């Protein structure tokens, strides 16, 4: 029980400053870029998830941070296609962590896993948006 409490507190200590910082940044960026989002994300089935995937791939952090950012972006008019790809690639593709991953699990494994995840993050976003058209 004590160990569980300590691990939870450590997680809170790690997550809260990042989450608060991200929310602060997004609130500020919202005022500046609000009118541009709809121009960048037009609902294109390839371009939108591609941008979402690229941004998600170079980002690092706990998965919950991607939900916060994704939710805010969705509110600001970014398409579901882009946001889904962003959230998916946030945890599955780690460009910044590739050297560490390669050192621990091997170069080939790292390149193939991240390459597959990058491609499938676009596919998953398309699938989800397609399913949503019928739900």
């Amino acid at each position, binding site marked *: *029980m004590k*160990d*569980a*409490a300590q*691990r*939870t507190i450590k*997680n*809170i200590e*790690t997550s809260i*400053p*990042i*989450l*608060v*910082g991200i*929310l*602060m*940044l*997004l*609130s*500020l960026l*919202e*005022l500046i870029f609000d009118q541009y989002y709809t121009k960048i994300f037009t609902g294109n089935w390839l371009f939108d998830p591609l941008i979402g995937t690229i941004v998600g791939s170079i980002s*690092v*952090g*706990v*998965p*919950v941070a991607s*939900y*916060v950012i*994704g*939710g*805010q972006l*969705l509110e600001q008019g970014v398409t*579901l296609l882009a*946001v*889904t790809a962003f*959230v*998916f690639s946030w*945890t*599955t593709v*780690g460009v910044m*962590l590739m050297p*560490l*991953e390669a*050192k*621990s*699990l091997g170069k*080939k*494994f790292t390149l*193939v*896993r991240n390459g*597959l*995840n990058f491609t*499938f993050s676009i596919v*998953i976003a398309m*699938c*989800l948006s397609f*399913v*949503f058209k019928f*739900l």
Partner: protein
Amino acid sequence: MLSRFPLRIKFFLLMCLLYVVAFIVTPQKTMTAFGNFVQAFVQMLPVLILVFLVMFVGYIFLKPEMIHRYLGEDSGKRGWFAACVASIFFSGPTYILFPYLKELKAQGMKNSLIAVFLNNRNVQPAFVPVMIYYFGLRFAVVFCLLVLGYALLSGLLIRHFVGEEA
């Protein structure tokens, strides 16, 4: 002096500094942004409390030795199921996982199971309430199913392209 702070604190301090600079340049807009931030944070707070409660309960029942027992050498078909379950309940950051997975790999964990474990990390009970809060229940259900399906597929693809022990 700043170098002794962890990266997350530096990031937070940088955001505070950004607000100070923005306030000097455009006070009205910065105050609006700050108001939006406070509102968003207060709205998120109950969900965050739930997240950490679920995390706490998860830590009580899930021990690292259990992951080792079910994902190690000779885990067989049970290992695929165990990889999915273990990734669902492990909520730490990925970079902590790599050295641990390296150790498990040295003890016989297959590449396919490592891929399943790493790629299924979007489906975590502790974070699902936040996902539902921001995207709705419908999104959460479909997204989690797609992630789970892809995690298993990625295991097969890694086995095909990389092999089990490369």
